[in-house]
């Protein structure tokens, strides 16, 4: 709890949850929002940050990241991940359970929470596994994990192969009102695949992953959500077909929500040219038609949430022949800029809608505090400059990962100050 008041002065306050969009002051007191919008005097002893020319928004929440602890502390820890999030303007992250050991029980969930608190930066919410060991066989103890602080369940990194197990997970999750975050991949169609299947994979001689590998699982689980009434949250949607299927499900009132990641909104399979392993992730980079369809999905709300799928890897592991390199890129420190550069600047999203997808919607769908600047809400705030250009230099990242395809690129939009619980956890030097 913050002893001093924090006054964010003179910024453009945009809070889609209340419809607020005005130049004014934001006062945080006792870790909560005290007032938003009105020009106010400086309370005695308050810390004041001049936000003139900057946007002040409810803190961004990333519902999909990999913090690697426990197991691969050499590539990321919960602390370095939380600090990277804060540096990217993200006030809370949901940590996927594919660690070693897997976060598949209440003690493991407690460990993630404990490390998150110790990091004393962005908030860290654990996601528990759907199945023990993420083996796709026996359901993990959702009830105890939620009791310990898990906010969702997922076998992310692996698909839930058994339709019956996914059905049970969606049914069982209803008692705890948590989403089942779904890694959509038909493992037989995707087996051995290293990139999107198409002309580029044919030319490069790399085994392809067809769009259908994602879409088949997406529609299966939309149908299982219909059957069970459970909430399925489709992770990292990457294809035109998936967007159409989600739209189909939403039109029918099925409880399906979905997320997209910055790389699927900005890059295509052409980036794999030259066998650049920074362009290797799962789902893979797709075609321009897919990118355009996912952008449109974000615009019209078919995609509810913008997440990162932040996945740090060691340089030695990425410095391999393409097929032998691991999937994934880091994203916490570039997500805001990539989203502004490829969605806001071209006029696809307004800043308010961007904030809705990065803050309000994730809070609502995952039942997290925050995502709003209404009086009395958690004082998690992101202050960012939507027009600032900067060159991505991976060496300066807070994350231990350097695996980004954006290195050397000039992007627009940068977090200036990140506030968690009324306290500044990141401020641009």
């Amino acid at each position, binding site marked *: 709890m913050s002893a001093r008041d924090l006054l964010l002065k003179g910024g453009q306050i945009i809070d889609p949850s209340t419809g607020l969009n005005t130049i004014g002051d934001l006062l945080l007191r006792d870790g909560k929002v005290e007032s938003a919008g009105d020009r106010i005097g400086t309370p005695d002893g308050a810390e004041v940050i001049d936000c003139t020319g900057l946007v002040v928004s409810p803190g961004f929440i990333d519902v999909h990241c990999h913090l690697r602890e426990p197991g691969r502390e050499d590539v990321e820890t919960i602390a370095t991940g939380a600090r990277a999030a804060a540096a990217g303007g993200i006030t809370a992250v949901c940590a996927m359970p594919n660690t070693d050991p897997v976060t598949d029980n209440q003690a493991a969930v407690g460990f993630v929470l404990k490390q998150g608190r110790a990091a004393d930066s962005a908030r860290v919410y654990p996601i528990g596994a759907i199945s023990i060991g993420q083996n796709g066989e026996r359901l993990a103890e959702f009830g105890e994990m939620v009791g310990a602080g898990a906010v969702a369940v997922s076998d992310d990194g692996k698909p839930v192969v058994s339709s019956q197990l996914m059905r049970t997970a969606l049914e069982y999750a209803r008692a705890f009102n948590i989403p089942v975050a779904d890694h959509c991949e038909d493992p037989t169609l995707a087996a051995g695949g290293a990139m999107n*299947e*198409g*002309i580029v*994979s*044919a*030319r*490069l*001689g*790399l*085994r*392809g992953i*067809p769009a259908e590998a994602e879409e088949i699982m997406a529609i299966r689980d939309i149908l299982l959500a219909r059957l069970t009434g459970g909430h399925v949250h489709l992770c990292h949607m990457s294809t035109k077909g998936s967007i159409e299927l989600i739209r189909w499900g939403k039109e029918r009132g099925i409880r399906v929500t979905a997320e997209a990641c910055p790389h699927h909104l900005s890059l295509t399979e052409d980036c794999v040219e*030259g*066998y650049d392993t920074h362009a290797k992730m799962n789902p893979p980079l797709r075609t321009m038609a897919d990118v355009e369809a996912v952008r449109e999905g974000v615009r019209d709300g078919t995609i509810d949430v913008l997440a990162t799928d932040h996945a740090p890897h060691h340089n*030695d592991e990425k*410095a*391999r*022949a*393409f*097929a*032998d390199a691991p999937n994934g890129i880091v994203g916490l420190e570039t997500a805001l800029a990539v989203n502004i550069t490829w969605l806001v600047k071209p006029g696809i999203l307004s800043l308010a809608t961007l904030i809705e997808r990065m803050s309000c919607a994730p809070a609502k769908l995952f039942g997290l505090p925050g995502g709003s600047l209404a009086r009395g809400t958690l004082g998690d705030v992101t202050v960012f400059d939507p027009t600032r250009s900067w060159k991505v230099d991976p060496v300066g990242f807070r994350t231990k990962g350097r695996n980004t395809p954006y290195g050397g690129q000039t992007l627009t939009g940068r977090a200036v100050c990140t506030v968690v619980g009324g306290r500044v956890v990141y401020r641009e030097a």
Partner: protein
Amino acid sequence: MTSPLGKDLLGLEKLTAEQIGLILDTAEPLKEISERTIKKVPTLRGATIVNLFFEASTRTRISFEFAEKRMSADTVNVASAGSSISKGETLVDTARNLEAMKIDMVVIRHNSSGAAQFLAERIESNVINAGDGTHEHPTQGLLDLLTLRQRWGSLKGRKVCICGDVLHSRVARSNIWGLQKLGAEVAVCGPRSLLPSAIGEMGVTVFDRIEQAIEWADALNVLRLQLERMEGGYIPSLREYNRVFGVTRERLDRAPKDILIMHPGPMNRGVEIDSDVADGPHSVILDQVTNGVAVRMAVLYLLAGNSPRLAEAAKGGV
């Protein structure tokens, strides 16, 4: 002195028709060296070449070794089994260590697509791709082109069909690019489960049945069907493959014209190709093998121009 091919030979996709023509033109006179009693010229004397083979290979490795030795290079063969590679050393470390011993060229065969380029970007020596995963096998493509050129003079307007497992074939990709650049028309034929789904975008005609291919083609390049493809579920059986897609005497007899028969080897007789075809009058399969040595000598010779030390040695002439 810069090599007309650049530092490395990684694939035919990125070469121009002129560069390919230059390699073939250079290979022609070099062929004669292998006909001599003393099959040796001093061209690459003092050059050190490492043949780095991460995958089993007989024909290609020996062909490179002959090419190197007939040009007087010092050669070292490194196979993955029994070397530090089997102890988990990374490709980068292996390469850097080799280079620290002052070498001039690396010939690499690797089971991952892009491995040759990966290596080429990290070492100063010339890198020659001797087959990377399912990507390219440029010297095989070149020797196929040389074989056809010797028969036809020019490839312009000629029709070549690549038959079989195009999906997993680095030979197919190198052939497609090379043939197209030299003006030939290219088709592929095989079960769709063994063709890349985007094959139509590579500028080739696709035949579903071998009979159609035989009616159309001036030459067939028959790819090896690996036993693993049946185990991998791509085709039901080798027996059926032979009956439906096999290049047989009976089928060739119905062709409207004589068709040249090529095969990159090793052959599965009775599967993708019948013995009386492989050994028949229109087979140029052993010409391909002979040309392989000449084409590799040409590639070594041309790439050597990129290295001052080698260029010095090359003054000894062909």
